[in-house]
């Protein structure tokens, strides 16, 4: 028997959120947190959470599991249980809609802001655009993001400025298009991130890396963006300096 504490909040009936305790009889095999939740929901159908693929590819069931963000469907109870207890809370930093369901509007807005689609100024050929395997390899570790929001909602910088700091998930995607040799808008993409907030609010806390259920490294992508921005700045400065020299 294990003790499961679940964050409960229904805006229609609850003035404040509360933790509800359930005693759960573990089956004789290890199960995923999602399976546990599904069983609890059979006895209490009012528990609300999102879920879809149940195999870690759709990104629906991100939640805080014993204090660490993860996907319920690929997190075995045995790996996270502490002192026979399991605590499930909604992803931190976003408004709670109900129970374990958060309002992801701001998270999606940041994703849309980085223009998450290929932009090319060359007309498409009759076949596919060619790309060498080594150029394609540059997208590995970037395109696999499932938009579960585990990273962005574990990031203190995102908690403080969810409207202005793009956040690790969307920055990873920003870099996915910067790194794509088929995309021709690198300069424009970098320019749109050059303000003090969009990317520079990342202070390398690395929570994003430690929670990503797909093993991706947004911090590395952010580092690449920062260094490209710096190179650009230096380049600009050099141009200005040489221009200035010419005029004087």
């Amino acid at each position, binding site marked *: 028997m294990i003790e499961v504490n679940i964050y409960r909040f229904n805006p229609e009936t609850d003035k404040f959120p509360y933790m509800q305790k359930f005693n759960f009889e573990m089956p004789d095999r290890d199960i995923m947190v999602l399976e546990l939740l599904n069983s609890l929901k059979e006895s209490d159908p009012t528990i609300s959470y999102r879920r879809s693929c149940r195999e870690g590819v759709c990104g629906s069931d991100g939640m805080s599991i014993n204090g660490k963000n993860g996907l319920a469907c690929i997190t075995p109870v045995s790996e996270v249980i502490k002192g026979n207890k399991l605590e499930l809370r909604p992803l931190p930093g976003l408004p709670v809609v109900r129970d374990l369901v958060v309002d992801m509007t701001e998270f999606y807005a940041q994703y849309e802001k980085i223009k998450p689609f290929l932009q090319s100024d060359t007309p498409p050929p009759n076949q596919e655009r060619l790309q060498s395997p080594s150029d394609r390899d540059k997208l590995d570790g970037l*395109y696999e993001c499932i938009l579960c929001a585990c990273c962005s909602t574990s990031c203190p910088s995102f908690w403080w400025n969810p409207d202005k700091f793009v956040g690790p998930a969307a920055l990873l995607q920003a870099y996915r298009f910067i790194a794509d040799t088929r995309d021709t808008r690198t300069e424009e993409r970098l320019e749109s991130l050059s303000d003090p907030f969009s990317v520079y609010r990342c202070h390398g806390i690395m929570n994003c890396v430690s929670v990503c259920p797909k093993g991706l490294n947004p911090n590395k992508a952010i580092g690449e963006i920062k260094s490209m921005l710096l190179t650009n700045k230096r380049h600009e400065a050099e141009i200005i300096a040489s221009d200035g020299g010419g005029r004087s």
Partner: protein
Amino acid sequence: MVGHLNKDNIHTLEFDALIVGGGGSGMRTSLELAKSGLKTAVVSKVFPTRSHTVSAQGGITCAIQSADPHDDWRWHMFDTVKGSDYIGDQDAIEYMCSEGPKAVFELEHMGLPFSRFENGRIYQRPFGGQSKDFGNGGQASRTCAAADRTGHALLHTLYQNNVKEGANFLNEWFAVDLVKNKFNEITGVIAFSIESGEVAYLKSRATVLATGGAGRIYASTTNALINTGDGLGMSLRAGFPAQDMEMWQFHPTGIHGAGSLVTEGCRGEGGYLINADGERFMERYAPNAKDLAGRDVVARSMVLEILEGRGCGPNKDHVLLKLDHLGEEILNAKLPGICELSKTFAGVDPVYKPIPVVPTCHYMMGGTPTNIHGQAFSSENEVDNEIPGLFSVGEAACVSVHGANRLGGNSLLDLVVFGRAAGLHINEDLKSGGGVEEANIDDIESALYRLNKLNESNSGFEVAEVKRELQEVMQNYFGVFRRGEFMEKGVQALVEIRDKCDNLHLHDKSDSFNTNRVEALELQNLLEVAEATAISSLKRNESRGAHARDDFPERDDENWLCHSLYDPINKDLKKRQVNFEPKTMEAFPPKVRAY
């Protein structure tokens, strides 16, 4: 949702076109319409990238002449017709295979991160049922892949391009029922916002069902929890037919216990199945294609191995998929997602040990019958009558390119080719004045009936219990092998389950993100699909493709070289002719299907 819902206390939102479902097919349709300037919306019960297309792994099959510059879409067409066990419509298959390359190149131009060959072209791998030269030239490599995450890459690419085109989404809205007027035209749907409980009549001149499959009618399936056949449930309740519902694909390699899919691409890359004796048994069942025979053939062979006592594990209830001989480098480069899934759900690292697998319900070949423009139809006296206002695409539809057995990699192609075709057609039709008449108050209220009844329930049956009962009946009586006497029992059991589904108890009556309500409505959709499946299976007295009957083990072309058309009003089965008239070539005549 307080009180009895009627036309006056719900909102009406008007659209030119409405797409129910935000997976691959729905988003390909919406992409076409977003560019058209028509007022459209995608109604999706999940944020679009959570749709089940995301789980597709191995690839999208298409003769793009990359792996083989001499490849020919006609060879792909031959394979697909043969794979369908000759009840795929040849005009539709011709359209899909010939339009395919354009659709795949379009995806690449949109940014889909396909894997590449050294020359920079799209990587293609061998998949089951593929041949060169109309079956005479050996195994083809025709499946375009983004590692083993092709569905994820495709779905995200389509969503991204919908964002780019400014498509309109009603995310986390659940469509309850079709609104049908007195002329039998579809004028939109009743739907509600899952987040707020707001109910609305989404009125539309064209309604596209892109709601995917319904694998959750079975206890064991590779399908996402959301695959509950909502569109088909709605159209069956509205009295419209469903085609070829006995045809369910059991994928040979679902992870034993968990049900998660292990792509056919594993066998394409050189993996193979072994039994308890370590024997590569597919050599006995399909001497030429071996592990890359049609999925139905491989699934049946596996079940026979298990039934004959050569299954693996303490219960001898599965076989093994061997991959370790491919080496760590290939596995990490070509099948990284599988390595991850196998470690998570089977506790096995395929670099060192084989994966325990078992045939698992995977794909619904049947669905709402449509023509190649996605236009749904009903049939009377062997004449197809279009249903004004109603369209369907993707797995929810039966166009029919898959017939009695779908080939691997053909479903992603189906999504983009027919999603695009439906979008083009609707655009043209609406701009030239097409549309439907109004629905009246009664029409709208009958579409609210189910929701009202559920909201007003004070007692009744438990959703979770009835769902489990339904899934067990389907699993036990309508699995890989079927027999008349058992199916009779199954059909009887479903009569009782229908009664329970009509009397469910909704515990939670609240408006905010009420998943109890969603699951109850989904269960009623599952029931419609299950019943159509059960009755169609019982009445097709032959074995063809995925429909394998112990009591009728042979294919019977004399009586059953035809589609089945399930009529939900009389709960009866009609026959419908298969199309043998492709436009640009001679039809492929039925032959013995050997691999």
